[in-house]
């Protein structure tokens, strides 16, 4: 099921074209990874999906209606964004930060508390429930933000859309895999449409169902890991000649 339909989208920032004529379908039940070198337009594309950018041309449809026609609260119930950095300096406790995700929902305060506890449990944050957010490590903060964002999607009226902007950048190795597995299981088991901006091609290869490779604001390749992560594409886009590894039990390309 196509959740987001991106049609002929172009974006300029300060008169410089950043995205040019992007056409893309984001499907429910799939993890879609946006890849590309720095400045290719990955983050801009993600920002366009949550209306942080003005489109220069084209249109973005969410569940068959133009995304700008959605009212703010129903949009927030169905589409959530995990920011790359959340600069919260006031000393909120962890559960209070997660509770901010209740904003668009209609719940009694008791139901809200139960929901928050569930989300804290899901991200193994229960022990940190009463810790002050600014004292957490980067990885813990990221997980708290993820719990907040998932809370926000608990009353979605259709398969929810989850946008993750470089979710692994502040995390250690084990946490990176935990977050990406969670994203994948949300997509595969709960029919979320997950869009994730990644730098690590191996993570994309391992966790994403659909890879979208951008170069200078245009899509140069899109599809499964096998069909997109080819020596030629990588060489063309990153100006780097990769070596591929054969790992037993791994059916997607791995490279270094």
């Amino acid at each position, binding site marked *: 099921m196509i959740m987001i339909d991106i049609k002929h989208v172009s974006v300029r920032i300060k008169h410089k074209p950043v995205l040019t004529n992007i056409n893309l379908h984001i499907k429910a039940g799939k993890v879609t990874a946006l890849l590309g070198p720095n400045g290719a337009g990955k983050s801009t594309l993600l920002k366009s999906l949550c209306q942080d950018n003005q489109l220069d041309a084209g249109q973005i449809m969410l569940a068959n209606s133009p995304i700008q026609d959605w009212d703010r609260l129903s949009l927030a119930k169905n589409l959530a964004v995990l920011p790359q950095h*959340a600069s919260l300096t006031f000393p909120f406790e962890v559960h209070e930060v997660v509770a901010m995700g209740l904003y668009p929902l209609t719940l009694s305060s008791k139901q809200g508390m139960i929901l928050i506890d569930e989300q804290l449990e899901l991200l193994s944050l229960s022990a940190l429930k009463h810790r002050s957010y600014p004292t957490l490590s980067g990885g813990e903060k990221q997980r708290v933000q993820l719990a907040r964002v998932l809370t926000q999607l608990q009353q979605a009226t259709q398969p929810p859309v989850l946008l993750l902007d470089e979710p692994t950048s502040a995390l250690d190795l084990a946490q990176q895999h935990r977050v990406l597995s969670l994203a994948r299981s949300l997509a595969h088991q709960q029919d979320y449409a997950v869009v994730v901006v990644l730098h690590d091609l191996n993570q994309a290869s391992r966790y994403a169902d659909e890879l979208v490779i951008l170069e200078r604001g245009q899509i140069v390749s899109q599809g499964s890991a096998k069909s997109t992560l080819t020596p030629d594409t990588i060489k063309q886009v990153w100006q780097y000649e990769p070596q591929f590894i054969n790992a037993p039990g791994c059916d997607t390309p791995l490279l270094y």
Partner: protein
Amino acid sequence: MQNPPWLWPGILGLLAITCLLSIVTGPLQITPLASFNAVLNWATHLDLATVAPHEQLVINNVRLPRTILAMTVGAILAQCGAVMQGLFRNPLADPGIIGVSSGAALGAAICIVLLPGSGEYTVAFSAFIAGLITTLIVYRLASSPSGTSVVLLLLSGVAIAALAGAGIGLLTYLADDMALRDLTLWQMGSIAGAQWQYVSLSLLALLLISWQFSRSSTALNALLLGEAEARHLGIEVDKLKLRLIVLCAIGVGISVAATGIIGFIGLVIPHLVRMVIGPDHKRLLPISAVLGAITLALADIGARSLVAPAELPVGLVTAMLGAPFFIFMLLKQKNRLI
């Protein structure tokens, strides 16, 4: 964080004691019992208890309006301070420090000097308009998508205060003796000579902003995540910001028109409250309001009694207490600021 169980009973008790203390303090000795009776007479409009007429007069026309005004303005300033800190995402924002009070004072001064004979409502309205313009200018100067820079915020405050000070200075040349006295008072902040018109006006403002702020408290919490994040949660960020700025300008404008510039209440009170109960605006705002009321009333009692029979402007008292606190906060943030 949970409210400690002693919190509400404690601060309400303190409020009552402060109220009583404020009513019995003054150059004319009135016993607590006579004061209480006089307040009872005033509140019921009946002569329930016998009080000497001159004592009743002092309570009715001097001490009651003064006490209520101090508490109302304290509650307004503390809440406006808390909201501005949320709006600017910066614990150093305060109507006095960022220049909004000075702007409002200039508005009031223009009205007093250039439109002699204008009533309390005109003065309050022009203070509100000037406060609003100042807030918008400071907000524009200091904010960026990632929050507000402390340095820019404080420097805009300095610039605005200098400009407003120059404006008021210019007006003192044009002012007659009566207006001159008022202007001096405005710049120092004083609750002496509280008038019932201003008492009712500021009570109305307090009700309005408390109601509106409490409706926005969840959205204000989310705004601390950042504007984009708040928008993604379904908050109409631009509308919310504009509404809060207008409400703060109403609160600060009316306070300044009624009492002149009283600094640091809006800075110190929310900060102390956050230290005890955390930054959640749902609890921060009402508790700051009560604590602000207590603090300004106590400061006013100090202003009346420290150099009795003369009086200090209450703005001096709050500055003497608040400025060292501000320096302490700057020291604590020093590493982050440089």
